């Protein structure tokens, strides 16, 4: 068949009506194609943006929450243990809340497996399987501690070992997977629509050439159908350009003021919680593992030498007016915490273990800033929440700019096709 099509097209291209027919068919097909590609491309972008708001962000936040809740549970369990045979109710509550939050966030994260995120299945299964083992060890540690048996501290250390070697790495893996997915979709949403651009440029160029050809062949300067088609194509181009530009601006804004700063703050938070656990375990497990060197390394990562460098400085640079305030609070709290930690270490090294425990637990009335760690954690939580809000606001706005655009472009494409057909049909009739 194709063998006969090409000579036939060649033959009809030799005559003016034949050429006109070809132009009509080509332009109207191109217009329909542009409309359809515009519809799918823009619809794709719009649904990517909706997915970012409705699925990626909640899942990513859940992954963050799992990591945060687990490491906070570990730090809190150690603090409660350090507090003596009778656990303070506040710490017990905090631990229980953490475990519940981790479980709930795990359920949220698991919904993503059926939404096509099969990669997340392995870490989620690991977390689901080992979280009960962890809480079991903590309960056993508590039960022994309540009876004054030192084997309790061995259970606590075993639980911490499970947390550090299995649970937290799995939570980190899950967070990395979800973050990569989220930023991948952000890139997709902000990507330049090359195919659509090429089609639109070709359509407009074709329309211009067709009109020049027609005005050369006939004595009419304008062909109404082609003018309408050109108008429709131009409106589509302008609308798409404005819509996509604005949408991309807001997507990027959501990344800059939202997800970007949240990522840095999440790192601050996990490092802070790890350091807090190290601080507690230095006192629980005196002399065994060197938790104090680990603390120093993490402290340096969080705040550099003086509490205002390191990750906090990166977060400050990434922040905007809505998040900078809590980040500054976090810096002040980090400085206070590290100073307090130095006093704790000094007390411990001087043999005043009881004083070291009091400073670490924040129960020493001498130090007003004894809650510095919790203030740091609260400030970072506040900044994270603000960052998430920014992300959702900006991304939702980005999505709004694309609301009726896909359908609009399809309609304009069909209109352009109709214009081409009617306009050229009119000329063709003159040859009969």
């Amino acid at each position, binding site marked *: 068949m194709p063998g006969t099509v090409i000579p036939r097209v060649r033959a009809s291209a030799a005559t003016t009506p034949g050429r006109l027919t070809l132009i009509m068919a080509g332009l109207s097909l191109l217009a329909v194609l542009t409309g359809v590609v515009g519809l799918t491309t823009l619809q794709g972008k719009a649904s990517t943006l909706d997915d970012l708001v409705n699925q990626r962000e909640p899942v990513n936040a859940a992954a963050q929450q799992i990591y945060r809740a687990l490491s906070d549970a570990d730090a809190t369990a150690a603090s409660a243990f350090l507090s003596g045979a009778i656990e303070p109710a506040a710490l017990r509550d905090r631990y229980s809340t953490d475990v519940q939050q981790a479980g709930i966030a795990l359920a949220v994260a698991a919904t993503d497996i*059926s939404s096509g995120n099969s990669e997340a299945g392995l870490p989620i299964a690991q977390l689901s399987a080992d979280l009960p083992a962890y809480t079991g060890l903590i309960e056993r540690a508590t039960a022994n501690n309540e009876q004054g048996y030192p084997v309790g501290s061995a259970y606590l250390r075993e639980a911490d070992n499970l947390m550090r070697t299995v649970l937290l790495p799995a939570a980190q893996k899950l967070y990395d997977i979800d973050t990569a997915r989220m930023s991948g979709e952000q890139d997709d949403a902000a990507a330049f629509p090359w195919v659509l651009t090429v089609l639109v440029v070709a359509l407009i160029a074709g329309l211009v050439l067709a009109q020049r050809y027609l005005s050369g062949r006939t004595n009419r300067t304008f062909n109404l159908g082609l003018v309408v088609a050109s108008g429709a194509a131009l409106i589509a181009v302008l609308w798409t350009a404005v819509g996509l530009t604005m949408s991309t601006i807001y997507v990027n804004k959501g990344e800059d003021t939202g997800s970007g700063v949240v990522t840095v703050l999440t790192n601050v938070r996990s490092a802070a919680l790890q350091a807090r656990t190290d601080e507690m375990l230095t006192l629980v497990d005196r002399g065994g593992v060197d938790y104090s060197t680990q603390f120093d390394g993490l402290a340096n990562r969080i705040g550099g030498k003086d509490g205002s460098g390191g990750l906090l400085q990166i977060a400050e640079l990434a922040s905007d007016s809505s998040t900078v305030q809590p980040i500054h609070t976090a810096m002040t709290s980090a400085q206070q915490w590290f100073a307090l930690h130095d006093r704790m270490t000094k007390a411990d090294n001087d*043999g005043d273990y009881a004083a070291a425990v009091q400073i670490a637990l924040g129960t020493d009335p001498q130090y007003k800033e004894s809650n510095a760690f919790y203030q740091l954690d609260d400030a970072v939580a506040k900044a994270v929440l603000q960052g998430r809000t920014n992300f959702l606001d900006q991304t939702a706005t980005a999505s709004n700019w694309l609301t009726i655009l896909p359908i609009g472009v399809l309609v304009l494409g069909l209109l352009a096709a109709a214009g081409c057909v009617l306009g050229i049909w009119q000329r063709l009739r003159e040859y009969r």
Partner: protein
Amino acid sequence: MKTARRPAALVAGLVALALAVTGCSASRTPADLTHVISLSPVVPAGMVSGAAAVPSSPGGANNCGDPTASLAPNAPLPTPGQMPANSTMQTIYKRGYLVAGVDQSTYLWGYLNPMTKQLEGFDIDVVHAIAKAIFGDPNRVQFRAITSGQRVGALTGDQTDPQVDVVVRTFTVSCQRVQQGVLFSSVYYNAQERLLVTKDSNVASIDDLGGKRVCAAVGSDSLPRIAAVPSHPIPVAVGDWSDCLVMLQQGQVDAIATDDAILAGMAAQDPNTKVVGPSLAAEPYGIGMRRASPDFVRFVNSVLESFRANGWQQSYQTWLAGRLGPAGPPQATYSD
């Protein structure tokens, strides 16, 4: 084996689950939800088992004569606060506190009491007696909790371990340790190495433990001894003795091999365990000090002389008599 199978089993389970959930399973096999992860057991940090748990012992460790013969006191105890000039005791006195390497997790010997948040136990009493002899105040002590494996290093200037004046931590006097640079006091307690098993266990001696896992703290004498038993038990090394009890309670080891004194503390924490078997070895406990300070060893031996007469029995009654029966302090032997 278990760990190797784990990812495959996991993926299979997940795929089955995902297919079941999304309902796009091509065949009509129901998803196997019993096919879950075979968990590798949770273990204490730093657990090592098999040959890797046994340190390669330096040769010629057994020809140091009688390691329990210590340096004899050569003077009566000085009045607290008036230490001889240029003595090790004076250096400690000027510092203001004695630095003692102790255990914080061995019940009845050296452990952190969660009720009082203080270190307590028989060894801790000995430390207080030394502090009292130097300062007149038994509480002028900075306790450093150290692991079994850190005991020698804490006295021989290894900078990776905390440095201390004395190690009072169920520290068995041995030729090997003497050759590594530890100077021991006279023996203040004679322990016997035995086994702790669960009450339902049929194990009566170490010979019944062929191919079974036996736990001991890293750096302890028990590990090479377990490895040398003809029936070949599998030695398992952990950081602290309390980690051994955790593993026994979790069914990850079949027995713990160590001194009856330590085992008594474990049995007190878990009524479902029992101490079994004949003595595998005598474990004479001494206070470890630096080779460079023989004057301090003589001083501490003098403190022990008075502790044996006044204090030893009281501490023994408080901590051990209830579990180990009546006993008296061992006689000191001296090399000069």
